[in-house]
């Protein structure tokens, strides 16, 4: 036959090999599996920032009184730290699933190996798993936002915009978390994630403004993701928005893009060698 070239199937490598448009099946699997998870553990993740708000904001806050925003406006201490803790709750939910749970699925459950033997591609798996992890962050954050509303800590109508903002923050942390976890092979390495998360939680202008630090330290904190989340949310709940808000959004958009690309490449390298 001479006309074989026309009857040969067209090349469909490249993106097709990465993505089958079925990330929803991976996300659906996560939701179904969540039924068997230990609910006490899941709920405790929500209460952590709530306890911080009560202890630091309400308890310690009575001794601190009001604090001044960069604009000079004075707000109660609880209203100062609550948006930071909202960003933290989005981070916690997203990071918890995208790090430890992903680590177990990768090394012990062999879940991704099973998924990759089907028509799913690494991008389906990355998006599905990141999507599931960010949902948990969004659920925590929505709960926390309700607590803030009940306590009268949302000072501006723009606080409603924190809903899409926490989605973006959770997406950023879930992507970053899964990308970092894909390089981890031992429990010891996983402990490093906690070692980074705790100081980031305490020092990212969460409980006091960045101005207390010497300048080089300020730069370091401003390079880390949580600070951008804290500032973004604080701007929205206090109604003090400026050009920096766009920078924070851009930072997270970049984090999402990098996280998804790195995760996809790692999954491909690990499971489609």
């Amino acid at each position, binding site marked *: 036959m001479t006309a074989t070239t026309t009857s040969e199937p067209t090349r*469909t490598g490249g993106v097709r090999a990465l993505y089958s448009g079925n990330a929803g*099946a991976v996300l659906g*699997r996560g939701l179904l599996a969540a039924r068997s998870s230990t609910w006490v553990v899941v709920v405790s993740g929500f209460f952590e920032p709530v306890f911080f708000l009560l202890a630091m904001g309400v308890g310690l806050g009575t001794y601190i009184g009001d604090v001044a925003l960069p604009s000079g406006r004075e707000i109660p201490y609880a209203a100062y730290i609550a948006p930071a803790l909202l960003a933290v709750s989005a981070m916690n939910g997203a990071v918890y699933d995208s790090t430890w749970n992903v680590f177990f699925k990768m090394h012990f459950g062999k879940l991704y*190996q099973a998924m990759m*033997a089907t028509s799913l591609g690494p991008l389906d798996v990355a998006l599905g798993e990141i999507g599931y992890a960010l949902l948990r962050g969004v659920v925590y954050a929505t709960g926390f936002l309700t607590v803030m509303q009940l306590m009268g800590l949302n000072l501006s109508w723009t606080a409603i915009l924190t809903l899409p903002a926490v989605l973006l923050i959770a997406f950023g942390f879930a992507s970053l978390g899964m990308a970092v976890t894909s390089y981890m092979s031992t429990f010891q390495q996983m402990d490093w994630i906690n070692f980074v998360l705790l100081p980031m939680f305490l020092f990212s202008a969460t409980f006091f403004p960045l101005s207390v630090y010497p300048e080089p330290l300020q730069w370091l904190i401003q390079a880390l993701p949580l600070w951008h989340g804290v500032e973004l949310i604080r701007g929205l709940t206090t109604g003090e928005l400026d050009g920096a808000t766009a920078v924070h959004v851009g930072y997270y958009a970049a984090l999402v893009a990098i996280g998804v690309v790195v995760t996809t490449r790692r999954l491909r390298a690990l499971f489609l060698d």
Partner: protein
Amino acid sequence: MKAGAPCPYRAVTFRLVPVPVITATGLTKRYGELVAVAGIDLEVAPGESFGLLGPNGAGKSTTMRMIGAVSTRTSGDLQVLGLDPDTHGPEIRSQLGVVPQEDNLDTELRVRDNLIVYGRYFGIPRAECGRRADELLAFAQLEEKSKAKVDDLSGGMKRRLTIARALVNNPRVLMLDEPTTGLDPQARHVLWDRLFRLKERGTTLVLTTHYMDEAEQLCDRLVVVDEGRIMAEGSPASLIREHSSREVVELRFGSRRNEAAAERLEGLGDRVETLPDRVLVYAGDGEAVLEQVARLGLHPTTSLVRRSSLEDVFLRLTGRSLIE
């Protein structure tokens, strides 16, 4: 068409030879310095049950992974269902059923959900997944375990569930990597029975094994693989005919006396093979050999005449046992 021009259809001849589902030529996989698969050629016809027999580390699993479009070849040609895995990975995988060497069932999901969710990975609608899950649970004799947790299943049940899962997308080829390794004899027989039913239905099976009895039971045709190369190819019966005698006499003289006895046995039958624990004499007539052994004044502690098996073929080809 101009008058007098040759009819273009006349040249077409109908070929009844089925198009192979898998064709590999010089298939090679290297991991750095290590050569896992060293240029193998094979062809699998639709409906055929094809086996790769070889010891651990022979390159069977790597070959399976390359055919399964989850590992890229280093060199050589490979066509699976007429497609090149390098460019059509997802299309190939959507038409394969894969049973990996180690069970990788979803332990966070119940038995039936394992089948449904796996079907969803292929983009099969949920209702259809449910229907197929019930059918497959019946096939795998796991109907009572539908709501059970995966961790509560026995080894044999997990294996059957893995096979059921691999069938959820109605695959054109079922790939089984060491399907019964680690199972007790009873569970193996249940599994063989299920696989045999699939074979009867016309499912193309590709399996690896290091059990000769499994290969003999399930494979129409097989290749013997060692150190990444194909040592021989054929049906179990033809391989035995070609590379071994009809019968084998197994003689045990005690581990310290085997060597000395083997020297005196030299010349008996077609061939004498000395293993650490026994001496094998390959011959057309085993009973006759036993009589000769007695006449030589040798008194083995145990003796046994049996038919040649693929184990003997492997020993002959590589000088080593399959299971060491």
